[in-house]
């Protein structure tokens, strides 16, 4: 009984200590910082983890070359748990408590749509390197100063490549399916819009599936019954493999395409050569499309050998480029580190950071397919129609689709 009372007292004490520690942690000042808030747990955590590799490598490279005025730039990394509310909390915290000069992230479109409002209102650069929903950039495109930038192919661009292909091949009966995530659903809306514009009817679907679903036969039987000759599927790699397997099961063999998710090496690893053969996807990046990309890919593989190597190359590469753009802007703005505690000065620095990012015109070392001047006042999408192409799996290799 006594022992129990002790334990109880100890536990209460521990909580009290924790409360004090929390109060203490709130007081301390630090050097130039960049915020990074992505999903490290929850539905899109593999994107987040891949993005974090790119983010960390960019910082490592920068700090190895002397950092900012001899001081290493510090990363402040938070997990948004794939929850919009948590993303809002993180971004607010990065802006007001951690005093960062810019933010890289998030990876989830739902989270992104929640936090861009704060970034815009608080006037801080938000570099989206993964999330593809069109509205992320569009929402503030009409404002005099849009604080949101993207290094990723948005849904509309990705889908337009598919429409091109359909028109070129004269395909008539199109099936549409998508996963139930925000990304999948906004992809569906984009596809429906673009197909309508191009006057292509949807013959089957849109059918929805859960991204963890392991049996897509009910959805695909409907495609089969409608006799489709092409399927657009907004699906990530694992669900993509399940689609291919379920197609085998019910004996339907039509060409089909997805977005960049299906080009992850994981798609091949899970599905194997036979299953992936002929599956198409849109991308801006393959690990060997340029010398820069090849070198970068090898570096990631080496640095993260223990964590599965370059397991999601597009995500890592885009985040690497996006982070470097922010760091380059930092060098251009060249703020006085001693004055960053001053709120008014910080505000000014952040505004200048945005302008600097928008005006970078000498970015020649990109690993993604990016122009030396990635952005412009009227264009915050660094990757456009000329950065992407429709690729196809052939015997375990990604090649350009003809």
């Amino acid at each position, binding site marked *: 009984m006594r022992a129990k009372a002790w334990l109880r007292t100890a536990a209460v004490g521990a909580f009290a200590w924790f409360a004090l520690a929390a109060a203490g942690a709130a007081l301390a000042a630090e050097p130039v910082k960049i915020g990074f808030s992505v999903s490290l*747990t929850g539905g899109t*955590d*593999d994107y987040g*983890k891949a993005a974090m590799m790119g983010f960390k490598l960019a910082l490592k490279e920068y700090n190895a070359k002397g950092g900012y005025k001899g001081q290493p730039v510090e990363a402040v990394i938070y997990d948004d748990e794939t929850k919009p509310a948590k993303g809002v909390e993180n971004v607010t915290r990065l802006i007001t408590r951690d005093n960062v000069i810019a933010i890289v992230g998030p990876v989830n479109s739902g989270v992104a749509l929640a936090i861009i409002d704060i970034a815009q209102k608080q006037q801080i650069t938000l570099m989206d390197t993964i999330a593809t929903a069109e509205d992320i950039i569009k929402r503030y495109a009409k404002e005099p100063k849009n604080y949101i930038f993207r290094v990723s192919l948005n849904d509309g661009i990705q889908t337009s490549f598919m429409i091109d292909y359909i028109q070129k091949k004269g395909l008539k009966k199109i099936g549409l399916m998508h996963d*139930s995530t925000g990304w999948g659903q906004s992809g569906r809306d984009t596809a429906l819009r673009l197909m309508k514009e191009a006057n292509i009817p949807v013959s089957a679907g849109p*059918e*929805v*599936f*859960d991204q*963890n*679903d*392991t*049996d897509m*036969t*009910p*959805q695909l*039987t*409907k495609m089969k*019954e409608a006799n489709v000759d092409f399927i657009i599927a907004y699906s990530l*790699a*694992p669900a993509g*493999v399940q689609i291919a*397997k379920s197609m*085998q*099961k*019910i*004996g339907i063999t039509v060409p089909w395409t997805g977005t960049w998710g299906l080009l992850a090496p*994981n798609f091949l*690893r*899970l599905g*194997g050569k036979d*299953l992936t053969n002929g599956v198409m996807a849109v991308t801006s990046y393959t690990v060997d499309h340029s010398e820069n990309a090849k070198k970068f890919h090898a570096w990631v593989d080496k640095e993260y050998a223990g*964590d*599965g190597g370059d*397991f999601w190359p597009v995500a890592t590469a885009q985040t690497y480029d996006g982070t470097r753009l922010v760091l380059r802007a930092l060098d251009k703005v060249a703020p006085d580190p001693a004055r960053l505690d001053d709120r008014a000065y910080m505000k000014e620095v952040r505004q200048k950071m945005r302008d600097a990012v928008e005006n970078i015109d000498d970015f020649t070392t990109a690993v993604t397919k990016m122009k030396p001047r990635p952005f412009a006042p009227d264009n915050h999408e660094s990757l456009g129609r000329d950065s992407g192409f429709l690729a196809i799996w052939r015997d375990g290799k990604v090649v350009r689709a003809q």
Partner: protein
Amino acid sequence: MFVKIWQALVSGLSVGSIYALIAQGYYVTYITTGALNFGQGEFLMIGALFGVTCYITLGLPYAIAVVAAVVLLSAMGAGLERIAIRTTLRHALSLSWVLSTVAVSIIVRNAAVQIWGPEQVKFPSPFGDKVLRIGEAGIFPQELFIIFGSIGTVLLVQFFLKRAVLGKALTAVAYNRRAAAVMGIDVQRMVVLAFVLSSALAGLGGVLIAPITFAWAYMGTVPGIKAFAAAIIGGLENPIGILIGGLAVGVLEQFFGIINSNLKEGITFLFVLLILAVRPTGLMGRKEIEKV
């Protein structure tokens, strides 16, 4: 139309038999302690990932991988009982084991992410990937194996509980704790055994389904919850009810997937609510008469 329904039935039985297998684990611990492991799905996931390590990384035969996963999970079951069940059964809140097992599941899942990474890992089926045809419906050999393996295991567990000495002791504890103790049965040991058995079933389930679902840290949550729903629908105290409940949930989902794929995920839960509103102990559960 017929082909569509036939395919849904075949696919549904394969998914449903896994639910039935996991749910059987709920049954064993529920009858002995009134508690069950809310992290059963995470245990299943550990079974699958550990199976991958044995089968792929270490290159052991499939059968050995299955045994290894079952052994590991049995140990985890004993640990779970010690940490999350024994400590909470006398808690003021009668359902505090729900939270303690959820807590364990959170920790286990996080550990799995750190050990095996967040990504799906392929677990090649030992029976190959060639689609078999039953009538017009297609099925993978592994799925067929799952159906027979699960139902076979369920029957084996029943046989164990009804015929084996140890199993009978367990059943006796379930029937009447105090009387069993008087008869010289070590009740505490039987409770541990129940959790060991339950976790072993989860581990087995993991190795069975991994070739279909891939092995990864988040694979278990949904099957764990759906299996719980299946057990509740059938009636937690009725092993046959649970078997039927599991298969029914699997088939139900596929059928509603045909009608409208938007309904596929939610239908099980709607079904549970409707059934419990009418029959508070499940379709085939014992009607509870409180002794006064």
